């Protein structure tokens, strides 16, 4: 029996005590494999694993498992994301078996954005189970070797189980309890929502550390560099559960013409530097949305290179 739960690179990096660094890659709105490969190439060697989003913001894209396989073929380790919006427990469990069979070893369990946001608002949603129950499902399949109905699995899937946490959504006081609940349900690692309000995140982490959650689970802090003032304003106003302080928008505005993106990256690097020192933070999850080509530069500047070989 391996000392690892899944043996994924991400698990090994975290277990060895390295400060982990994960990236993200959204599948194309089409079958444009070349574009996906091109985006993935920027991340290669910069991160320990790459999140592959599952119809994020409820917009139809190449399925997350299929794009994960493309990444795997390209020599990157995917962190396969799955949402509960589009699948019932039959499809969920069969997809888990399928991705494992093809070599995927990390999985991030999410509820999923409501379809009313997306490009098929007329769709019927599923939500047979919620994200908490999805974590429990993957853990049951891995550790008990059974399906949700208790039936034995012939070769159980061994996945490193991830979950999300949004320290900025409301009710704020409940968020750390929800994190605790996800860990109790079986989450091995957590990736947080993009952090901009550092005060609030410090407070959240303090509570998590006080509860000893960082000893039961690896917590990766979410970072998304701001590309423009418009993006910051959009995130502040339009994205539910996102907390962008006015002071950050002001800072970006103050950077001057042509220098906003650089200032955004500078802020992200300052954040990463602080996370490295912050008690309970085991790594950073960098979500450079449609900015994959800037990841090598950010990784370099943040002192995250070279990535450890475990």
């Amino acid at each position, binding site marked *: 029996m391996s000392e690892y739960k899944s043996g994924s690179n991400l698990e090994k990096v975290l277990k060895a005590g390295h400060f982990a660094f994960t990236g993200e890659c959204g599948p194309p709105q089409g079958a444009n494999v070349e574009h996906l490969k091109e985006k993935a190439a920027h991340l290669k060697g910069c991160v320990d694993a790459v999140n592959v989003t599952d119809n994020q913001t409820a917009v139809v894209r190449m399925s997350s498992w299929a794009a994960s396989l493309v990444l795997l073929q390209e020599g990157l380790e995917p962190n396969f994301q799955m949402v509960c919006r589009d699948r019932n427990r039959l499809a969920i469990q069969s997809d888990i078996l399928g991705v494992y069979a093809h070599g995927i070893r990390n999985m991030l369990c999410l509820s999923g954005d409501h379809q009313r*946001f997306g490009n098929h608002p007329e769709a019927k*949603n599923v939500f047979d189970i919620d994200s908490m*129950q999805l974590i429990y499902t993957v853990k049951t399949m891995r550790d008990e070797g059974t399906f949700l109905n208790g039936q034995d699995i012939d070769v159980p899937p061994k996945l490193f189980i991830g979950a999300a946490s949004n320290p900025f959504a409301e009710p704020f006081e*409940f968020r750390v309890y929800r994190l605790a609940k996800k860990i109790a*349900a079986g989450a091995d690692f957590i990736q947080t929502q993009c952090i901009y309000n550092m005060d609030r995140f410090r407070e959240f982490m303090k509570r998590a550390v006080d509860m000893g959650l960082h000893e039961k689970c690896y917590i990766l802090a979410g970072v998304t560099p701001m590309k423009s003032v418009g993006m910051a304003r959009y995130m502040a106003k339009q994205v*539910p*559960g996102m907390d962008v302080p006015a002071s950050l928008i002001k800072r970006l505005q103050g950077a001057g013409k042509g220098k906003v993106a650089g200032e955004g990256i500078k802020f992200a690097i300052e954040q990463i530097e602080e996370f490295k020192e912050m008690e309970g933070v085991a790594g950073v999850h960098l979500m450079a949305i449609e900015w994959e080509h800037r990841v090598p530069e950010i990784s370099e500047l943040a002192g995250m290179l070279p990535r450890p070989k475990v």
Partner: protein
Amino acid sequence: MIVAEQKPIKEILEMVKDYNKILVLGCKGCVTVCNVGGSKEAAILASTLKIAARKNGKKIEVEEHTLERQCDPEYIDEIKDMIDDYDAVVSIACGVGPQFLSERYPSARVFPGVDTKFMGGAVEHGIWSERCAGCGTCVVHHFGGLCPIARCSKSLLNGPCGGSSNGKCEISKDVDCIWDIIVRRMTELGRLEELLEFVPPKSWITARDGGPRRLIREELVL
């Protein structure tokens, strides 16, 4: 109650445009309470249909009648002697009504005059809100008396998703985040720890997912 809303009048007119003797059939149950399908609304709809026909230079006969309930064969039977006098029936009961009518009177042409919306109640005069999804296994007592299955956009059972903001749901500023309310209520009641317990996957076998439902109470069966 079952809450319904009148269909757009254009849609009703289009449905009945080829018929000359129309019966508008109201119901004294839920749809009367939510002011959409009772005797008053039946009379208004009947007049509207007549006026619209007259405007188009057409003379039609429209009468209205309101049953005690359209979800009970006993009351559906009441119109057995009159239904053949009409070539179309517009039922303004919930979705049960047109079906009970169609089943009892297979040759009748029955149209729905309302859109059945949800199970809920009036939260203010003129404002109704959903409360029950009819999942077949009530669990509201675990959530401070509030139902996350009917009232959370994602039917989450283990707490609020990351989209809850200022007490509102991520889908719209007009929709309350029920989990925000549940958490606050349970905190006030000193019962927050109950929400920290993992709620396992729910069996939907008693919900519509288990197939069309039927309820048999042996002691009541004649």
